[in-house]
């Protein structure tokens, strides 16, 4: 591994301030606000609140607004041409929610109508347009989702896994977020006034920004020097009162960039305008910079808070600041709150900018900070080699129960597919801890508690196909039943994809990186890749968890093929960079298994001809919705690698749910320890207590290869 630079070579942006660099720059130079009362939908009660709305994204198109915003932001990059990106990383929380809400309200039961619901379909759509055949990652860490792709994209390039990465974020206005934040009393009826003495909250917004990150040169706009991720492990929504998590993310970003605070000319604040965010961020910024504060501002009084887009929108605003020497004003702030002592820019300022620190914080205490600099202005960050991830312990949950119950049933050749009774699921979890939680966070906590045991994990990487369906359904049902008057704050807080990961972090006090990734069949593999990339596990073990819940109403609409037999569960691995446990590594991940050459690349990644001899068995994930293609892919891999051993079609036994592979990984880890897989499960199963490992193949629309070898 060498010291690699990661450039931003092209970007696109759309927000309430306009479309593209020119309109955005003009708006930023004028200091104007794009906030206006919502007109996308009409709230039946109360005045329409100010939001950051984009007029031209009106209804009636075939794809939901989030997808269209992402396409518009990516358009200049697509037009510029060049080879396809090796990976796509997009942050989003709402996905197709704006389109889903009226469908659910109208009781539409045709799953086809919901095909763009999944958050992961935004990145999948972009990947298809860019002809990307590599990993397609969707980060869903609430309001820090848009900054994490810069961190993951840069890590993909520095690790040598990619030379070009399309990274960004997108979110659109929808009722879930409009009423959700309102129910939390976090909305300023006068429009967001970040850092103002009289601020009352944020303004929800929509937008998107995309960047092409490259390892090459050319004429880049800016360079990503470093990124830092952390978790407050404090509260589901409120930030840490002293800003501890924000501070540690900023410090980690500067540390990775190799910069000192004096190198930062501008801080792009998260600055939502809520009383608590601005206060805790101010404490963190002052603790970091002490008396020597650089120029700083929040643009959310101008753009509104575009949630998962905001981190990416502000990364592009930072790149514009560097490229054009323009520091945006803290629009909306009339009288800076003396209690914050931050002195934000009241008007836009022309100045040369060497480096920007851009913050993004979200629910679940999930924090990200990114350092963006003039290209080649500073030394490249030092690359470091990391030992492989080793599994210290593991756990799974299926319809049969937790790990021991599941394995016992499998060894007796019994099917474990089903929906585990909640009472059994929650055994051992403190009643007060889980009283407000529904099925997915309970699954996740129960997996994490079993896998971690007495250990204290420092980070959490969570993968989920569909997120917290119970909370989402409860929130929307109550919203519609009350004619949009009485949304539930509890259900809103629980509905975000990363709520379970936030709960795990709070339970263990895990203050390291906390990422949630989502995908229809590869969410667990995405989470594992993220853990490898973020180099987690150096200061202690981290949890890699995958889980999904079967929901009687929503699962059949969103994931009809899998919902034919209701089944859920998941798996958790406690991994570390030390110890002597089994070695786990993600060898290959492609978001498009159907693309020409994708399976060949997977075969190459495994070692090609003869690679089959390295494995004692293959655990094949064959999704119900795509069996024919998946079997053909499996045959091709087995033939090319000359693998003649047993193949365990695990989804038949543990259920068709998005993160079934997480449960399979936990079983594989146990079987590695025993040197055999149960003979009753597949023909030809025999002992492989000779150093051979197990191969987990994810097949179908996305394909993946995870290897587990004895330690």
């Amino acid at each position, binding site marked *: 591994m060498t010291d690699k630079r990661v450039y931003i070579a092209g970007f696109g942006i759309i927000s309430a301030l306009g479309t593209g660099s020119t309109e955005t720059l003009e708006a930023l130079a004028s200091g104007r606000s794009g906030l206006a009362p919502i007109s996308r939908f009409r709230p039946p009660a109360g005045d329409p609140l100010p939001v950051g709305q984009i007029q031209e994204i009106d209804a009636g198109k075939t794809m939901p607004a989030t997808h269209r915003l992402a396409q518009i932001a990516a358009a200049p990059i697509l037009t510029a041409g060049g080879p396809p990106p090796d990976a796509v990383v997009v942050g989003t929380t709402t996905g197709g929610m704006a389109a889903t809400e009226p469908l659910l309200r109208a009781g539409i039961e045709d799953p086809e109508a919901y095909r763009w619901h999944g958050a992961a379909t935004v990145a999948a759509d972009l990947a298809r347009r860019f002809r990307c055949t590599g990993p397609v990652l969707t980060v869903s860490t609430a309001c820090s989702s848009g900054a994490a792709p810069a961190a993951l994209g840069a890590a993909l390039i520095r690790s040598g896994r990619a030379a070009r990465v399309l990274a960004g974020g997108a979110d659109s206005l929808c009722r879930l977020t409009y009423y959700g934040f309102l129910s939390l*009393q976090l909305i300023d009826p006068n429009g967001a006034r970040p850092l103002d003495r009289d601020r009352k909250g944020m303004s929800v917004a929509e937008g998107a920004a995309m960047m092409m990150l490259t390892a090459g040169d050319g004429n880049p706009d800016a360079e990503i020097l470093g990124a830092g991720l952390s978790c407050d492990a404090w509260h589901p929504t409120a930030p840490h009162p002293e800003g501890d998590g924000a501070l540690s993310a900023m410090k980690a970003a500067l540390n990775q960039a190799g910069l000192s605070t004096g190198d930062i000319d501008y801080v792009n604040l998260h600055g939502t305008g809520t009383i608590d965010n601005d206060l805790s961020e101010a404490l963190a910024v002052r603790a970091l910079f002490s008396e020597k504060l650089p120029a700083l501002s929040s643009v959310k009084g101008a753009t509104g808070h575009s949630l998962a887009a905001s981190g990416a929108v502000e990364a592009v605003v930072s790149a514009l600041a560097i490229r054009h020497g323009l520091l945006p004003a803290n629009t909306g702030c009339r009288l800076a709150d003396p209690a914050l002592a931050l002195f934000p820019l009241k008007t836009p300022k022309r100045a040369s900018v060497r480096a920007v620190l851009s913050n993004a914080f979200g629910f679940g205490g999930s924090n990200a900070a990114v350092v963006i600099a003039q290209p080649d202005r500073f030394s490249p960050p030092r690359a470091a080699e990391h030992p492989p991830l080793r599994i210290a312990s593991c756990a799974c949950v299926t319809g049969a129960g937790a790990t021991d119950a599941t394995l016992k049933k499998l060894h007796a050749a019994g099917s474990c597919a089903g929906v585990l009774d909640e009472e059994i699921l929650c055994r051992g979890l403190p009643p*007060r801890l889980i009283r*407000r939680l529904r099925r997915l966070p309970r699954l996740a906590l129960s997996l994490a508690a079993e896998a971690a045991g007495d250990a204290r994990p420092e980070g959490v990487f969570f993968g989920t196909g569909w997120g917290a369906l119970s909370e989402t359904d409860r929130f929307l049902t109550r919203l519609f039943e009350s004619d949009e008057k009485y949304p539930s*704050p509890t259900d809103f807080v629980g509905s975000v994809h990363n709520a379970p990961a936030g709960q795990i972090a709070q339970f263990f006090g895990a203050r390291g990186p906390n990422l949630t990734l989502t995908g229809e069949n590869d969410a667990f593999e995405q989470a594992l890749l993220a853990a490898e990339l973020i180099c987690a596990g150096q200061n202690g073990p981290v949890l890699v968890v995958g889980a999904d819940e079967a929901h009687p109403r929503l699962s059949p609409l969103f994931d009809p093929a899998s919902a034919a037999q209701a089944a859920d569960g998941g798996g958790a691995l406690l991994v570390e960079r030390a110890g002597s446990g089994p070695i786990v590594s993600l060898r290959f991940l492609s978001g498009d298994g159907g693309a020409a050459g994708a399976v060949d690349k997977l075969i190459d990644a495994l070692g090609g001809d003869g690679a089959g001899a390295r494995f004692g068995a293959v655990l094949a994930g064959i999704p119900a919705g795509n069996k024919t293609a998946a079997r053909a892919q499996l045959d091709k891999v087995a033939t090319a690698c000359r693998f003649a051993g047993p193949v365990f079609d695990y989804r038949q036994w543990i259920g068709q749910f998005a993160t079934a592979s997480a449960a399979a990984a936990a079983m594989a880890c146990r079987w590695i320890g025993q040197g055999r897989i149960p003979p009753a499960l597949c023909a030809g199963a025999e002992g492989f207590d000779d150093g051979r490992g197990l191969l987990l193949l994810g097949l179908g629309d996305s394909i993946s290869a995870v290897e587990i070898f004895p330690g």
Partner: protein
Amino acid sequence: MEPLLKELREKIVDILDLVDVRPDDIDPDARLVGGELGIDSIDVLEMVMMVEKDYGVKIDNREVGVKVFATLRALGEHIRQNAPELRG
């Protein structure tokens, strides 16, 4: 007042899923939020919705909220004084 407090006790236990609290356990004069019951800021917002929906009383700022949710009795008193149906 007592029937209102009894009603509120039952509602609070129900909407907040207070699994290990019985309605009678809620002392009308003890600290309601941040005390032994385990009620936190998100629960307060859930109670705000309930009070508005069931009694027509809006509580939309933090300063008022802190006083109103200090104890069960304070909440009952606030509802009694402000609810259109209970006033007068």
